[in-house]
C-alpha cells in the first residue's frame, strides 16, 4: 500500500507541487488528472525515487522510502515515448529488469515469453525495437515494466503518442492486464476519457494541489469547484447572485444574466453572495428551471446536435432546431460554490 504525505516541489523558485497527499490500496488503479505542466510527471518521478523531494514523505506498507534508492524500490515505469533501449532487441529490453535481479537465463527466457504473451506480442523476441510501430513499442514498454513483477506500476501519459483507435484498444487491454495481475497502479494523464476508463479513483491536480478526488462517477456528478467543472467539460459555468432563500426546493433564488433560477445547494451562502452555477448541457425533463433563447449555431455531434444559443450557452439536443429559432429548454443547475 502506497501512502504519500504532503509532497512539495519547487521548480526554479516557482512552487510546482504544494502538499500532495493520497493513499493507494492493494489492486487499486488511481489516476492523476490535470492539465499539461501541472507537475504530474514530476510527481511520478518523485515516487519512483528519480527526483528528490523538497518536503513530504513516501511510505510503502508503512516503511519510509526516503533512504531507498530508485533501483531498489521495485516500482515499474511506463513512459509516453516508450524509452526503449535502442541498442537492445525486444527480448533484451523486456529481460533487462530480470538481468538486474540476476535471474538465470532459463528463468529469464520463460518469464519474457510469458509477459510478451500477456501483451499480445508473442513471436516478437528478436525484433529490433526501432522497427516496431507505436502501439507495438508501447506494448514492449509495458512488458518490460511488468516482467520483474513490480509491486507498483506508474504510467506517465503512456498513450499520448498514439492515434485514437489504437489508444482505445490499448486502454482496454491495459485495464484487463491491471485487473488480472492485481498490481496497484498510478496513471497520469490530461485526457479525462482515459482517466475515467481506467481508474478506480480519480485525483484532480490543479496548481500543485489535489482539488478533488473520488470515483469517476462521484467526480462527474458532484464537481467541487468551477475549475473542476471547466476542466472536465461538464457544462456551462455561469455567475449569479444569491437573492433570497426559500422557494419550492428550499434552495436559493439566484439571479443570473440568463434568468432567475431556483437552485438547491448545500453551501452556507448569504443573500448577496456571488455564486457559480453549472448548467448541464442536456435537457432535464423534471426540472422547473427553464431557459429561453434564440439558436445561434447547430453542429452535428455523434448521436445528437450541439446547439449554441445567442447568449453563449451550449446544449446537446436530440432534435435539430433551426438557426434563429427561439427555443425553450428545461435545465438542471448545480451550485459550485
Amino acid at each position: 500500500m502506497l501512502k504519500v504525505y504532503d509532497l512539495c516541489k519547487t521548480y526554479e523558485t516557482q512552487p510546482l507541487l504544494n502538499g500532495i497527499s493520497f493513499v493507494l490500496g492493494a489492486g487499486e488503479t488511481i489516476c492523476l488528472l490535470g492539465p499539461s505542466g501541472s507537475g504530474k510527471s514530476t510527481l511520478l518521478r518523485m515516487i519512483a525515487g528519480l527526483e528528490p523531494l523538497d518536503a513530504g514523505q513516501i511510505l510503502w506498507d508503512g516503511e519510509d522510502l526516503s533512504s531507498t534508492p530508485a533501483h531498489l524500490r521495485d516500482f515499474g515505469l511506463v513512459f509516453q515515448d516508450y524509452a526503449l533501449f535502442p541498442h537492445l532487441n525486444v527480448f533484451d529490453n523486456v529481460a533487462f529488469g530480470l538481468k538486474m535481479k540476476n535471474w538465470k537465463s532459463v528463468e529469464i527466457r520463460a518469464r519474457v515469453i510469458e509477459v510478451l504473451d500477456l501483451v499480445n506480442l508473442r513471436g516478437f523476441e528478436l525484433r529490433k525495437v526501432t522497427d516496431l510501430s507505436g502501439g507495438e513499442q508501447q506494448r514492449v514498454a509495458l512488458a518490460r515494466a511488468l516482467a520483474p513483477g513490480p509491486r507498483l506500476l506508474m504510467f506517465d501519459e503512456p498513450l499520448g503518442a498514439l492515434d485514437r483507435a489504437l489508444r482505445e484498444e490499448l486502454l482496454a487491454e491495459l485495464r484487463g492486464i491491471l485487473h488480472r495481475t492485481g498490481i496497484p497502479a498510478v496513471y497520469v494523464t490530461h485526457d479525462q476519457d482515459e482517466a475515467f476508463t481506467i481508474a478506480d479513483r480519480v485525483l484532480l491536480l490543479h496548481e500543485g494541489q489535489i482539488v478533488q478526488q473520488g470515483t469517476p462517477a462521484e467526480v462527474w456528478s458532484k464537481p467541487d469547484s468551477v475549475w473542476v467543472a471547466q476542466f472536465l467539460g461538464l457544462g456551462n459555468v455561469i455567475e449569479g447572485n444569491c437573492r433570497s432563500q426559500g422557494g419550492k426546493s428550499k434552495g436559493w433564488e439566484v439571479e443570473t444574466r440568463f434568468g432567475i433560477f431556483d437552485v438547491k445547494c448545500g453551501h452556507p451562502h448569504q443573500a448577496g453572495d456571488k455564486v457559480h452555477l453549472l448548467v448541464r448541457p442536456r435537457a432535464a425533463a423534471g426540472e422547473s428551471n427553464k431557459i429561453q433563447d434564440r439558436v445561434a449555431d447547430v453542429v452535428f455531434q455523434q448521436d445528437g446536435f450541439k446547439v449554441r444559443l445567442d447568449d453563449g450557452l451550449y446544449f446537446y439536443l436530440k432534435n435539430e432546431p433551426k438557426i434563429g429559432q427561439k427555443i425553450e429548454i428545461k435545465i438542471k443547475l448545480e451550485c459550485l460554490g
Partner: protein
Amino acid sequence: MMNRRVLLWLAPLTFLGVLFFYPFFRILAFGLSMETVKADNLQLVFHVLLFTFYQAFLSTLLTLLVGLPCAYLFSRFDFHGKSLLRALTTVPFMLPTVVVAAGFNALLGPRGWINIGLASLFNGLTHSPVPFSPIPFVGTLGAILIAHVFYNTTIVIRLVSHALSGLDPKLEHAARSLGADSRRVWGHVILPLLLPSILAASLLVFLFDFTSFGVILLLGGPTFATLEVEIYIQALQMLNLPLAALLAFIQLLCILIFSILYTRLATRVVVQSAPRSTLQHKAKTIRERIFVIAFCTLLFALFILPMLALPLRSVSSLNVLRGGGTPVLSGLTAGYYTELFINRRDSLFYVPPIQAALNSLGYAGATVILSLLLGFPAASALARPGRLERILDPILILPLGASAVTLALGFIIAFGRLLISPWVVPLAHTLVALPFVIRTLQPAIAAIPERLRQAAASLGASPFRVWQNVDWPILRRATLNAAAFAFTISLGEFGATLLLARPDYPTIPIAIYRFLSQPGALNYGQAMAMATLLMALTTAGILLIEKGRLPGTENLF
C-alpha cells in the same frame, strides 16, 4: 548550365591538378621505383612506422583518459566559469604547433618556469655548491604525449559530450526503475549508446597524432622520428628524395585507410529517438564536488598554464648563478622584443628577425586572396551539386588528408629548380587552406534562397545588382570567416614551410624553430617573444572565426 559549371571549376581544378595531383603522381613514381624498395630502406620504414603507431596509440589513450571525464563534466554539470573553460579547451586545436611547443617549453623546459621555480627552491634550501640540474622534459616521449593531449582533448570533449547530451534521460530513468544502480546504468545503457561517438573521436585523434610534425620535431628532439618527421629529414638533410617519397606514400596509404574507417563509423552514430539535452545541475554530493573541482583544476593546469607561461617567459630576464646550472628569475625585460628588430652580424638570419613577422603577414595575405579566389567558384559549384560535383567532392578532400610535409615534398620532387621563387610558400599555404575555405563558404552560398534572386531579377535588377544586394550581404559573414581561417592557417603553417622557404625569407614559425634549436639565453628569449607574437595573432584569428561560426560548419569533422 554545363558550360557555367565547367567555368566555375576551371580555376580550382587547374590549381589542384598542377600543385597537388601532378606532384602526387611524381611522388608515387619516385617512391615506388625498384631501387627505392630495397631491404635497408624497408627496414627504416618499418621502424619509423612502428614508432609512429606507438606514439599515436599512447597519445590517443591518454587523450581519452583526460577527455572522457571532461566530456562528462561538461554535459552533466553546471559550474562557475563553465563557458570560459569550454572555450579555452577549443583554442589549442587551432594554435600553431610551434606556439604549443614553445609554450610547453616555457613551462616545463630546462629554462621553463617549473625548473626555475625548483632551482630557486633548491638553492634557497640547500645552499649547496652543486648546481640544480633541470628535470628532463624536452626530448622525452612524455613531452610529445602531453602536447598531443593538449591539442586533441577538445575533439573528444566535443564529440562525446554532444552525444552524451543527446541521450534521452528517460532511458536512464527506465533502467533505474528496472533495478540498475549507477554502475549498471553506465555499463548497460549509457556506454553502449556512446560507443560509436567514442570510437569516432578516438579515430580522429589517432589520425591527428599519426600525422603530427611540429610537436615531434620541437618537443621530441632528434631521438624521435615519425613518418612525417622522417620525410622531412630524408628530404632536407639526407637529400634522399626517393626514400622520402616512399615514406610519403606509406603515410598516405595509412591516412586513406583511417579516413575510410572514420567515415564508416561516423554514419553509425546512433540517432536518439527523442533527443533532448539532459538538464545540467550544480554538483551536489561530496563526490560530485570533488570530481568537478579536480577536473577543473586539471583542465586549467593543462590548457591555461602553458599559454600563460609563454608570454610571461618572453618578458622575464634571468641570471645564471655562479657555477652554472639553472638560471634564476631576476626581473622583467622587454629586451627580447627589441632584439627582434636588430640584425646582428652573426645571426641566424640575413635580416632582422622582425622581418620574419612581416613575411608571415605577407604570405598570409596572399594565401587569403588566393584561397578566396579559388574557393568561391568551387563553393558555388558545390552549393548546388550536380553530377559533376558528386565526383569532384571527395577529390577536394584529398589535400586535406595529405600532410603538409607531403604536399611540400611533392612540390620539391615535381618542380625542383622552380622553387627559388618565394611565391612557392603562399601556394603551398593555399593548398592547405583551400578545403577549409570551401567548407566554410559552401553552406553560406547554399543558404541563399534562389527565390530571392529571382524576385530581385523580376524587379529589374541586373546580375551584378542581384549579387550586390542579395548574395553579398549574406556572404559577407562567411567570407570573413573563410578569410580568418586561411589567415590563421597560413600564419601557423610549419611543416610545408620548413621544406619550402628560402633561408632569407623566413616565416615566424621557422624563426621560432631556429631560435629554439640554438643555445643561449638571447636566442631562447627571442623564440619566446616571437612565439608570443604568433600566439596573439592566431588567437585573434580564432576568436574571429568562433564569433562568426555558422550552422553547418560545426561538422567540420
